[in-house]
């Protein structure tokens, strides 16, 4: 399970009658996104970010925690509770308890939690009657026995307790993303003025004038910025958008470089190129049911016809599945060509795509 840093800000977790809570959440989400582009808002007041990348960048998890706490304080003037653990379920509990769970210890941490941590009173009541008081004790019940003693909700919770699922049903507010998108759309002009260019200094005004000249010369799409602030998926969040345009949320439907980890390809193809992989007998390479390759790839073919030898490959790795795209089965693979170039490929529905080049 992915190691996550959870941020819990209780004061902005419930909507106040005078409004502003959602906007405060949005502001905080955007600020945290600048620290880590893969920050997600789970529900009001709860944010998570994968901690591996940022901790390398900031120089340790401790440093990331400090940066996050400072960031929350700067934006909301509140003190956040933060914690680190594997999987969303444990990460939220760790944050509320203000704990950093050492790598690999999340299971033990989960097992010691009281049954109430699973979030259902009826389940906890039944459990206590049976003498089951902790998540661990609940997890130890054989799955077949669950139906005999608990109601239908218990199946999923049992899987969470066993660590087969990383989050509770209902832990995420799935309607929140929609609301945020709607609010952002209505506040577009504000975003253009303040979002990217934030606090306007002289350097920024000069840059803006230069950008206008280029746009005048080459057209509205010609000058772009990396949009790290808006969007739903990590890929959307790092999309390129025309400078000065409202941040558009787009999905080309094609696979993207994702979670292979560092180093990351320095060229990430916005429109991945379809390629073919062949083994040494010139047979197409397929990804099998269990995520294994049909043979070792020996050649890659680009269109227009160009054939290069592959000297090394790694993967395929199934793409870390995220809740909004569970229906998509994707895998990624790294290859080295005979000329020493490194590339990132993606496979979806048995088609191969070139998605990144490590130039």
């Amino acid at each position, binding site marked *: 399970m992915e190691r996550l840093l959870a941020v819990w800000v209780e004061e902005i977790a419930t909507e106040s009658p005078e409004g502003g809570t959602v906007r405060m959440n949005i502001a905080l989400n955007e*600020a945290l996104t*600048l620290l880590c*582009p893969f920050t997600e808002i789970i529900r009001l007041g709860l944010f998570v970010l994968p901690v591996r*990348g940022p901790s*390398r*960048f900031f120089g340790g998890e401790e440093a990331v925690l400090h940066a996050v706490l*400072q*960031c929350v304080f*700067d*934006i909301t003037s509140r003190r956040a509770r933060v914690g680190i653990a594997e999987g969303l379920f444990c990460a939220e509990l760790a944050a509320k308890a203000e704990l950093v769970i050492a790598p690999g210890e999340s299971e033990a941490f989960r097992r010691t939690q009281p049954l109430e941590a699973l979030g259902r009173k009826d389940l906890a009541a039944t459990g206590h009657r049976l003498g089951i008081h902790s998540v661990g004790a609940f997890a130890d019940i054989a799955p077949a026995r669950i139906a005999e003693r608990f109601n239908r909700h218990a199946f999923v919770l049992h899987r969470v307790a066993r660590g087969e699922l990383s989050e509770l049903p209902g832990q995420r507010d799935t309607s929140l993303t929609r609301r945020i998108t709607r609010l952002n759309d209505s506040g577009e002009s504000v975003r253009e003025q303040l979002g*990217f260019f*934030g*606090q*306007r200094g*002289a*350097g*920024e*005004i*000069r*840059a*803006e*004038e*230069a*950008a206008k*000249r*280029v746009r005048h*010369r*080459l057209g509205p799409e*010609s000058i*772009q*910025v*990396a949009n*790290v602030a808006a969007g739903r998926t990590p890929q959307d969040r*790092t999309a*390129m958008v025309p400078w000065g345009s409202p941040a558009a949320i787009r999905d080309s439907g094609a696979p993207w*470089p994702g979670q*292979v980890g*560092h*180093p*990351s*390809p*320095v*060229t*990430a*193809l*916005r429109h991945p190129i379809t390629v073919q992989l062949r083994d040494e007998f010139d047979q197409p390479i397929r990804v099998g049911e269990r995520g294994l390759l049909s043979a070792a790839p020996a050649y890659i073919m680009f269109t227009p016809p160009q054939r290069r030898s592959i000297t*090394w490959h*790694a*993967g395929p790795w199934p793409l870390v599945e995220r809740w909004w795209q569970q229906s998509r089965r994707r895998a990624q693979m*790294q290859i*080295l*060509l005979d*000329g*020493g*170039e*490194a590339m990132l490929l993606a496979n979806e529905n048995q088609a191969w795509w070139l998605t*990144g*080049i*490590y*130039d």
Partner: protein
Amino acid sequence: MFASAHPRPTLSAELIAKVRPIALATTKTLPLGEPWRGMVSSGALRRGTTTVVDAAPGQGGLSLALGLVGAASMKGHWVGVVGVDDPGVVAMTDLGVDLRRVLFVPRPRGAWAESTADLLDGVDLVIVRPPSIPAHGAVRKLMDRVRERGAVLIALSEPRSPWPLPADLSFKIAHSEWRASSRLEGRQVTIVLGGRGSAHNSTEHVVMLPSALGKGEK
């Protein structure tokens, strides 16, 4: 973090836009990060100079160029990137580039030199990868513009589109090899440093670019 207690400058935008970087700059150099700082005698990029990064495609030239601007970008300087299609923004962040202050002109078509010149007026550093063979005259004009504006130009030179004029500083990737185990871990590149009248002519350096952390590293 974003809020400011300071009132906004009262100068008009047009006026501020006309102020030259050299007048705003507190120093005549832009900072270089590790591992580059130790390679260059001044330990920084001098304003008004052009640096050429010479590498075959896929050998790490782009990573090197981005690595060179990382420290300045982090310090608040604006960066322009011309002719680099589909930049990998995660990799850029890893190399230390602050994406909030980067303007991209990914596909300048025939007007790469003109758009580079436009950007040189407004940002402190410009990375340019000419999409076609750069003409002698256009390059000379650009390098003059860099001097005049006190900016820093970093030009990517590839065998297919070599930079035609000698630069103040040049990084040539002589050799590049990936380290890999169960995945790509980092690339070891051998860099030959050169440049006009510099003390470090033809010194050789070996760095990891990117390292396992995505950064540049000795």
